[in-house]
C-alpha cells in the first residue's frame, strides 16, 4: 500500500513539475482574474510554439510582490504582470531589469502611453482600463464627477476605498471637478469625509459593487471598465457616464525580474502576448482591452472595452510615481477624515 502511494506521488510530481518533459520552463506571476481564458488564449498557444512549459503563479499584488522580493537573490519568477505603481515599487527595490524593446517585434505597434510607462524600459503596458461612473439612468443623470457627492445621490452612492486601484484616480477626478487638480487629494478626501454619512459604503471589490447595484442599494459608483460587463445586463437601466472632466483609469504592465537567467524566453513570451493576434483574442474574449494599436474588434466588443486611440488618449491617469509616493499620505488623510 505504502509503495503504491509513493509511486503515485512520484508520478504526480513528475507530471506537475513537467521539467522532465521539456527542458525549458518559464515562471510567470499574474492576477488570478480570468485564468481559464489566459490558459486557453495565451499560455497554451505559446507552449505549443516554444517547446517549453509555463508555470503560472497567481495571487493578489501584495502576495506576489512579497514573493518576488523574498526570492530576490535567486529569482523564481521570470516575468510578472502588475499595475504600473506596483511595478514601479518593485523597480525601486531593484527587483526588475529593463525590457529589451529590440527583442519585441510587436513593440512599435503599442499605443505610445504603453511603450515605456515606468521609464528606463522597466515595464511595457499590455492593457488598460477606463474608470468612470456607472449609474441608474431611471434615477439620476451623471455628467460630472462632482455628482457623486450631490444631494440627488446622497445615501445612494458607493465609492471605491482609497486602498483600491480605483480609489485614488476617482478621488483625483472628484478633486478636478471641484477645481483642485493637485495630486495631494486634500480637497477631495475632505469633501468625501464631510459627506461620509451619505456614502453607502467604500467598496473593495467590483464584484461586491455589482451586487449592491443589483439589490438597488446604490444608484451610482465609480468603477473600472473591466467590470462593466457585470452591470450592463443586470436587468436595470444602467449607463456608463462620460463626465465633463473626462475619465480616469489605470494601466497594467509586464515586467522582467532582475537576474532571472531566463530573459530570452521571457522576452519571447512578452512579444507573443503583445502580438496583434493574441491581443485581439483577449479583447474578443472581453478579458483585457488591447494595448496593441493594430487590434481591430467589432463595435459590439469595443463597446465593452477601453478601445481605440481616441479613448486611450483621453484617459486622465495618475502617474505611477504619484501613486507610489503619495499613497501613505492619502491613506493617512483618509483614516483621519473619512473612516473616523
Amino acid at each position, binding site marked *: 500500500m505504502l509503495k503504491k502511494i509513493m509511486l503515485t506521488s512520484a508520478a504526480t510530481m513528475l507530471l506537475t513539475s513537467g521539467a522532465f518533459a521539456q527542458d525549458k520552463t518559464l515562471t510567470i506571476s499574474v492576477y488570478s482574474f480570468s485564468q481559464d481564458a489566459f490558459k486557453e488564449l495565451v499560455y497554451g498557444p505559446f507552449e505549443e510554439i516554444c517547446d517549453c512549459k509555463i508555470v503560472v503563479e497567481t495571487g493578489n499584488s501584495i502576495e506576489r510582490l512579497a514573493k518576488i522580493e523574498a526570492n530576490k537573490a535567486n529569482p523564481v519568477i521570470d516575468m510578472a504582470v502588475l499595475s504600473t505603481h506596483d511595478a514601479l515599487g518593485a523597480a525601486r527595490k531593484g527587483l526588475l531589469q529593463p525590457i529589451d524593446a529590440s527583442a519585441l517585434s510587436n513593440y512599435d505597434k503599442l499605443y505610445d502611453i504603453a511603450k515605456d510607462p515606468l521609464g528606463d524600459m522597466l515595464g511595457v503596458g499590455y492593457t488598460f482600463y477606463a474608470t468612470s461612473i456607472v449609474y441608474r439612468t431611471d434615477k439620476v443623470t451623471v455628467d460630472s464627477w462632482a455628482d457623486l457627492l450631490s444631494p440627488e445621490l446622497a445615501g445612494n452612492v458607493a465609492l471605491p476605498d482609497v486602498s483600491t486601484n480605483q480609489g485614488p484616480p476617482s478621488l483625483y477626478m472628484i478633486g478636478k471637478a471641484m477645481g483642485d487638480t493637485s495630486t495631494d487629494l486634500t480637497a477631495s478626501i475632505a469633501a468625501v469625509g464631510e459627506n461620509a454619512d451619505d456614502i453607502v459604503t467604500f467598496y473593495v471589490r467590483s464584484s461586491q459593487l455589482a451586487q449592491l447595484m443589483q439589490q*438597488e442599494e446604490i444608484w451610482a459608483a465609480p468603477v473600472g471598465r473591466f467590470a462593466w460587463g457585470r452591470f450592463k445586463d443586470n436587468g436595470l437601466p444602467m449607463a456608463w457616464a462620460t463626465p465633463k472632466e473626462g475619465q480616469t483609469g489605470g494601466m497594467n504592465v509586464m515586467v522582467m525580474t532582475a537576474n532571472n537567467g531566463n530573459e530570452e524566453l521571457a522576452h519571447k513570451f512578452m512579444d507573443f502576448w503583445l502580438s496583434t493576434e493574441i491581443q485581439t483574442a483577449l479583447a474578443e474574449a472581453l478579458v483585457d482591452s488591447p494595448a496593441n494599436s493594430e487590434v481591430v474588434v467589432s463595435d459590439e466588443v469595443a463597446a465593452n472595452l477601453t478601445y481605440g486611440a481616441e479613448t486611450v488618449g483621453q484617459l486622465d491617469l495618475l502617474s505611477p510615481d504619484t501613486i507610489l509616493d503619495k499613497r501613505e499620505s492619502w491613506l493617512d488623510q483618509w483614516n483621519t477624515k473619512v473612516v473616523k
Partner: protein
Amino acid sequence: MFENRAVGLALTLPAAIFAAALFLVPVGILLSEAFRIDGSWSIGAYIDFFSSARNRTVFLRTLKLGAFVAGVSAIVGYAAAFVIVSLPPTSRGRIFGLVTLPLMISPVARTYAWLVILGRTGFVNQILVNLGITDTPFRILFSETAVFIGLLQLFMPLMIISLVSAMENMPKDAVPAARILGANWFQVFWRVILALTREGLVIGGTLVFTGSMTAYITPAILGGSKVLMLETLLYQRVTVANDFVSASVIAMILIVMSFSANLLLKRIATARKSR
C-alpha cells in the same frame, strides 16, 4: 486510565508536538515581531497603534460590539434555555437541533443571507414599509446595527448550548423549592438559576465575546470599511499596507482581550459564589 504514566505521555506527544511546531512556534515568532523595533525589544508599536484616533475607535467598537452581542445572547439565551430544558425529551431534542442547525451552515452563506434580508429592498424593509412604519426604507447595511445582527445570529447558538447544558445539571426541584419558599420570578432567576448556571454563562459568554471580536467575514460583509473592527483592520493592514507590525499588534490585542474576557467572567462568577 493508563497504568504507566509514560504511556499516557507518549500518546499525547504527537499531538503536543504538532500543536507546538505548527501553531505555538509560528504564532510566537509572529507576535514577537510586535515587540521589536529595529532589532531591540520595545512596546513602541503598541503606543503607535493606540495613538491613532481611528485605531482607538476601532478598538472600542470591537469591545462594545463583543460585549453587546454577548450580553444580548445571554438575555435571549436564558429565556430560550429555560424553555428548552422544561420541554419533554423528544421536543427538546428537536428544538435543540434547530438551535444548533445554523452552526452547521457556513458563516459566509449566513452572512450573505443578511445582505439580502437587511437590504433596502430586502425582507425587513419590505415589512416595515408595508406596515406603514416608514415610507423610505431604512439603511441598515454597512452600519454597526448590521454587524451586531449578523454577529448575534452567528454566535447566539453557542450561548444557548452552554446555558442548556448548565441548566440540565441544575437540581430539578431548585426552582419549585424557591417558589414555595416565597421567591418571586426575579429572585428565582437572580438567586437560584443564575447562581447555579454561572459556569455555563462564563463558557457561553467567553465563546460569544471572543467569537464576535475575532469574526472576520461578518464585519467585512455587513460593515465594510465604514465599520472597521479589529479583525477587518488587521486584514487591511496586511493586504493593503503590507504592515505586518500593526497586524501583529492587533493579533496580540485580540489574544489578550480573549484571555481577559475569560478571566474577568470567571472572576465575576466566583465573586458571586463566595458571597
